[in-house]
């Protein structure tokens, strides 16, 4: 199976739905170990992404991701804006050229996206940031041969849940040191919603 423009649009629309539904929850998570704006930031940004994509006639997956990236960078703010923006921009760069994206190319794009987050945030695995969802998910998907909705769903869920036990060393939660333990990382939870949306939109099409 290849990942089409239609799926790319669908992915972002579904991501937006999940983020809007869980806006308050994401802010509550951020209130516990950050400054309480994560849900508000993400909801504002993804709403703008959907508005931006709406009605455009895209020929390439890369163009969808590029518009999403630019919108996220200019509308989200905070730490998550540049991070998600960079992820989608790197994905767009990796996917350039083809109309639809093969599984291998898709994984390469996700890998570049994850690397972009690490580079922009100067973060690595185990620091209680969204890197702790992106890295393990990419790693597990790399081992598969084709799109697997179940694998995307399960790998992102367990990675997200595992952020609870980490003591933060990056981002606002790092100010709390040991007190950051026992709380989920908000950026990891929103990354999880994005991967859930991906899983939903390829389900039934494999």
């Amino acid at each position, binding site marked *: 199976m290849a990942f089409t423009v239609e799926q790319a649009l669908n992915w972002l629309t579904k991501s937006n739905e999940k983020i809007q539904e869980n806006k308050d929850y994401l802010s509550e998570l951020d209130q516990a170990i950050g*400054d309480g*704006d994560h849900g*508000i930031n993400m909801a504002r940004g993804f709403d703008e992404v959907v508005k931006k994509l709406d009605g455009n006639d895209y020929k390439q997956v890369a163009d969808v991701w590029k518009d999403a990236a630019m919108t996220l960078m200019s509308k989200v703010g905070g730490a*998550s*804006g*540049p991070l998600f923006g960079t992820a989608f921009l790197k994905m767009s760069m990796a996917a350039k050229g083809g109309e639809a994206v093969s599984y291998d190319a898709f994984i390469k794009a996700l890998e570049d996206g994850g690397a972009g987050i690490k580079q922009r*945030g100067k973060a690595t695995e185990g620091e209680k940031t969204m890197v702790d969802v992106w890295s393990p998910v990419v790693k597990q998907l790399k081992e598969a041969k084709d799109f697997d909705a179940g694998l995307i769903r399960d790998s992102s869920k367990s990675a997200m849940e595992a952020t609870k036990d980490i003591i933060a060393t*990056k981002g606002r939660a790092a100010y709390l*040191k040991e007190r950051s333990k026992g709380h989920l990382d908000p950026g990891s939870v929103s990354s999880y919603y994005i991967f859930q949306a991906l899983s939903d939109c390829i389900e039934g099409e494999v």
Partner: protein
Amino acid sequence: MKKIINDPNQVVTEMLDGVVGAYPGQIKRIPDTNVVTKKDAPVQSKVGIVSGGGSGHEPAHAGYIGKGMLDAAVAGEVFTSPTPDQVFEAIKAVDGGSGVLLVIKNYSGDVMNFEMAAEMAEAEGVDVAQVIVKDDVAIEDRDGRRGVAGTIFVHKIAGAMAETGASLEEVKAVAEKVIANVRSMGVALSPCVMPASGKPSFELGEDEMEVGIGIHGEPGTERKPLASANEIATELTKHVLEDLELSGSDEVAVMVNGLGASPEMELHLVNRKVQGILQEKGVKAYKTFVGEYMTSLEMAGCSVTLLKLDGQLKELLDSPSDAPAFRS
């Protein structure tokens, strides 16, 4: 929640209109942005100074726009870093040919968004330098420290240096000198409420205080029973002094900053004790600032900032500024 607002989603843009309305002769807004600049920006062949960050810290940052201080301030949503395109607009608007210094507070959001803007500006041939303020001693790890009220001294001194016609490199160097010599610490007695969420940033009992608080309603490093003004001043000053390593004949600038809801009266009680502690140590308070300089919405509490001075810093601190929130 009781707030004087219209639409919670419009507070930042409406506030900026209000700021421009208050100082129409001095400050203007770049249309369709959340960037405000000096009326006469760009000032030819002067290094431009750009600061900014989330809103909710008023008078920071727009109140520090003026001759001798900032050329532009970029306002993000409440407690949220502004986006790179906005910072980029500010850089372009104040570049008078001698380059632009970005004053960034050390939060991952601010650092990333400002860095991306700097990359955009460099790609267009604008000389950009940046300094990262990290004065909050509540965070042990020096590189992880937040930028709080000490940022005002960076604005003041870098701004004054730029007025002398100094190069970007020289302005950056003096800003770094301030950063190396400024330390702050704060305490909160009550949380703040973000307009968009309508909820308090944390729960704090009637008889409790949160020590080591930042300026975003994020919880502090330690929760303690509420103490007296003298005890609060002593605790904050102690941590600041431990980190600054002052000796007998040193001179400092003092800032006792209100976080939004503590009356000036209480800030002066804190200042009284701070002055006493400095006297005891034989440290001279060269200049003292008491008031609201870097707030956290309606949080009750205060922070204490000390800046160790030398001849150059004293002169630049004394030189004129006509910024609405910092006249000297």
